[in-house]
């Protein structure tokens, strides 16, 4: 059961929030891993240790791929490019400039900076609002190809196709290298683990699940993806640096497309989105490949290829289902133990602009080529108004909603929210101006729990932690009311996809209200609801206009519903506003009658 805590009267800010993190678990497991790694070289032969060191560096790289692909849904072929940048930074500096502690630091820094710069550029190219995931993958595909060619073009400097070898490096004992690689992997894995289990980690999953919904919740998706890509690039570069320093050889294969796809295979087989799976998968497969490289390499590669295809087609969870499932159950049960967040009222954000008009739409039009979907749309919305948008199919209602929530959508005209121009802002910025959009089909995050969905919705106003989970979920009064009245408060730990249809609609509405919007846009909120649910939604919407003084704009076909709850009605027909008035004005209008039924029996309607 969730409890409600109210901040003390007069308190301007929420109480200090407790954070739960897995730091304890990570430290314990990490320490254990380090101990195992510490002892390992003494039990294994030199050949194995050698192979393992390379595998450990590659596993760290595979981990970055899992973060990008398994968690965030970015199919990337490009992590090998950053690995290669780090490796070549090492080789180039040591070969052509000098060797020593200072040079090593310089080389590492250069590698990281170069990788991050390339990642930022590629990210800017690939992850923009409205980019298709396919295009993003294409850019990540182009990266290693371009880089490999750059290496080839480097002639003597880069060693071209033969690469560079024998450059001065740290000729430490094999045990020390093992410990260095192992510690690096453990640290990276530990940090990544904390990150994916934190509130910010849930944002990544939300992006993978439903990027559109994230954008309309004010989450700057492109920026997050680029940042993640840059960080992953940096880590990849470090791994590459270590690899090159140890093996003392660099070749274009390290930057290449084939390595990039190998990484995806390891992650897929190990189990995407599990972190440990890809790490183990990478180590296991790479070590086995190295052992078999003398014997029957082609049969091994064939087997890996077959397994890969089988996994993609039939077992998206990966080949370690036993491990993966047990792992997931462990993770979920660890979360369920006393981890239900406590619901609390959030102190409302500052509404300085109260005197201005909530919504002012002037001469908005939208065409698709020569097809005019909306023309000359002019209207205003006041505070506390429940404005219904009605009209036959194809009248342009949903298009108008889209124009209000996304600055790119309209072809012309001006929209101002509380005096501030919508301009060409993408959806996440429109949320900042005060727009909250609820979609017609319940648009939530299927694999996240109710509490997590709500927390994601609070991104803008309650920045999530990158290493922990907050134990308190603060929601504004309106959202909290919905959560409690519809029984969602009892299902905070249930995954959203298991909710009934009516509950999902309520959850999405609560998420939109969690944004503390000034204007709420709803598209057919009663679609598919039972009579009881309709009445409840009607009451909720009415109370929102009365208590919170929100402006609500709703597109509806159910004219009974419209008549009951609206304070004003706008009728759209063939892209124009034909009527804008009170409910009585519209209900009694002959024009509306004609538009809707194409002529009543007994009346001869004139040819238009």
């Amino acid at each position, binding site marked *: 059961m969730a409890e409600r805590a109210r901040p003390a009267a007069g308190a301007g800010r929420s109480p200090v929030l407790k954070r739960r993190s897995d730091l304890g678990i990570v430290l314990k497991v990490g320490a254990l891993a380090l101990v195992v790694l510490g002892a390992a070289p003494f039990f294994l032969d030199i050949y194995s240790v050698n192979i393992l060191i390379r595998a450990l560096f590659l596993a760290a790289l595979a981990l970055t791929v899992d973060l990008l692909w398994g968690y965030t849904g970015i*199919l990337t072929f490009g992590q090998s490019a950053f690995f290669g940048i780090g490796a070549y930074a090492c080789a180039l500096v040591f070969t052509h400039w000098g060797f020593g502690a200072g040079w090593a630091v310089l080389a590492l820094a250069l590698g990281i900076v170069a990788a991050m710069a390339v990642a930022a550029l590629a990210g800017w190219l690939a992850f923009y609002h409205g980019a298709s*995931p396919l295009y993003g993958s294409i850019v990540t595909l*182009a990266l290693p190809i371009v880089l490999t*060619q750059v290496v080839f073009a480097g002639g003597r400097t880069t060693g071209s196709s033969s690469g560079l070898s024998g450059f001065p490096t740290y000729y430490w004992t094999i045990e020390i290298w093992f410990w260095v690689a192992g510690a690096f992997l453990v640290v990276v894995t530990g940090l990544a683990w904390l990150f994916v289990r934190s509130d910010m980690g849930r944002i990544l999953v939300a992006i993978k699940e439903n990027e559109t919904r994230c954008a309309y919740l004010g989450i700057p998706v492109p920026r997050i993806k680029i940042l993640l890509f840059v960080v992953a690039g940096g880590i990849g570069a470090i791994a590459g640096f270590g690899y090159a320093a140890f093996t003392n050889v660099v070749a274009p294969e390290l930057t290449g497309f084939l390595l990039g796809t190998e990484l995806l295979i390891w992650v897929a087989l190990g189990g995407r989105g599990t972190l440990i799976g890809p790490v183990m998968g990478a180590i296991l497969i790479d070590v086995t490949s190295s052992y078999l490289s003398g014997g029957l390499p082609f049969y091994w590669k*064939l087997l890996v*290829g077959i397994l890969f295809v089988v996994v993609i*087609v039939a077992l998206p969870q990966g080949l370690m289902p036993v491990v993966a499932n047990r792992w997931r159950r462990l993770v979920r049960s660890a979360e369920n133990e006393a981890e239900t967040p406590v619901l609390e009222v959030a102190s409302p954000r500052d509404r300085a602009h109260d005197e201005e008009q909530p919504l002012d739409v002037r001469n908005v039009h939208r065409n698709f080529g020569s097809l005019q979907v909306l023309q000359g749309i002019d209207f205003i919305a006041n505070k506390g108004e429940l404005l219904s948008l009605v009209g036959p199919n194809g009248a342009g209602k949903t298009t108008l909603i889209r124009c209000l929530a996304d600055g790119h959508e309209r072809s012309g005209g001006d929209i101002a929210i509380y005096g501030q121009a919508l301009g060409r802002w993408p959806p996440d910025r429109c949320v900042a101006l005060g727009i909250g959009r609820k979609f017609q089909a319940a648009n939530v995050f299927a694999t996240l729990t109710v509490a997590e969905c709500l927390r994601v919705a609070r991104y803008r106003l309650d920045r999530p932690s990158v290493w922990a989970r907050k134990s308190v979920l603060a929601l504004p009064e309106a959202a909290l009311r919905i959560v409690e009245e519809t029984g969602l408060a009892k299902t905070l730990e249930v995954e959203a996809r298991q909710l009934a249809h009516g509950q999902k609609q309520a959850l999405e509405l609560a998420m939109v209200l969690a944004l503390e919007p000034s204007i709420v846009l709803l598209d057919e909120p009663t679609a598919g609801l039972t009579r009881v649910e309709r009445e409840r939604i009607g009451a909720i919407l009415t109370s929102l206009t009365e208590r919170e003084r929100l402006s609500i704009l709703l597109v509806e076909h159910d004219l009974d519903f419209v008549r009951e709850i609206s304070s004003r009605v706008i009728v759209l027909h063939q892209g124009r506003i034909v009527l804008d008035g009170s409910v009585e004005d519209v209900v009694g209008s002959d024009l509306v009658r004609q538009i809707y039924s194409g002529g009543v029996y007994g009346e001869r309607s004139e040819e238009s």
Partner: protein
Amino acid sequence: MVGVLVLDIVTTAAILFAVATGLMIILGVMKLINFAHGAFLTIGGYAAYVATSLGWNPWLAIPFAALVGFLLGVIVEHVIVRPLYARPLDAILATWGLGIIIGQLITIGFGRQVQFVESPISGAIDFLGQSYSLYRLVLVVLALAMGAALTALLYFTRFGLNARAVIMNEDLARGLGIDSTKVRLLTFGLGAALASMAGALITPLISVDPNLGLPWLVNSFMLVLVSGVSIPGLMVAALILGGAQVIVSTYFSAILGGLTIVVIAAVILRVRPQGLTSG
């Protein structure tokens, strides 16, 4: 010199076009990027090798390769691609995995060494004082023939009409009695056949090894994304991007030339995500 440059551009464009058509119709009908495309090219190359090793007329290698490609394509669509209809990114990976499988099977069967395939036509002709490979010129004719045949298939046959209907609106097509599953199956087979045929066509120029298809894969698919689903569009894209590649290779460096298509395509798609020809 300019004459030779122009010939290089035209022949390169023709080769790119021939190689990319198979990928394009699969993308059009099935909305899917077939990453096994490179492997089908390789299969075509080896089919040609087998045909010529058996002493057949080298020209027969081409339809033979097409047949092998078609049969394999039909099997692949049924087993691997169909379950992934709703997961396009996963389909890219699965077809890539398939490409690996095919590559390894070929290596196991034929060994890793490079094989040479006899060219159906050898020799060169004199062009403005320079000597130019006759086979390359013949390829231009063959590529145009491929384009013409495909256009005829799409616009003059019932299958073609059905396929175009499925490309435009699959649900509407189904509601009119078109078995879109069968159309997809045959289209994939056709796309694989075209790829194999292209593989057989280009092997006299570049020799055959298990990794034959790989460099063509990325270039083809960049071309197809830029051109959109349109035969003339693909010809134009092949000319423009192929031309750019030739110019960069000739005047700057061959290595940078290899990058040209990829880089230019990525930029074009950023600016016009729908490609050059749609809208």
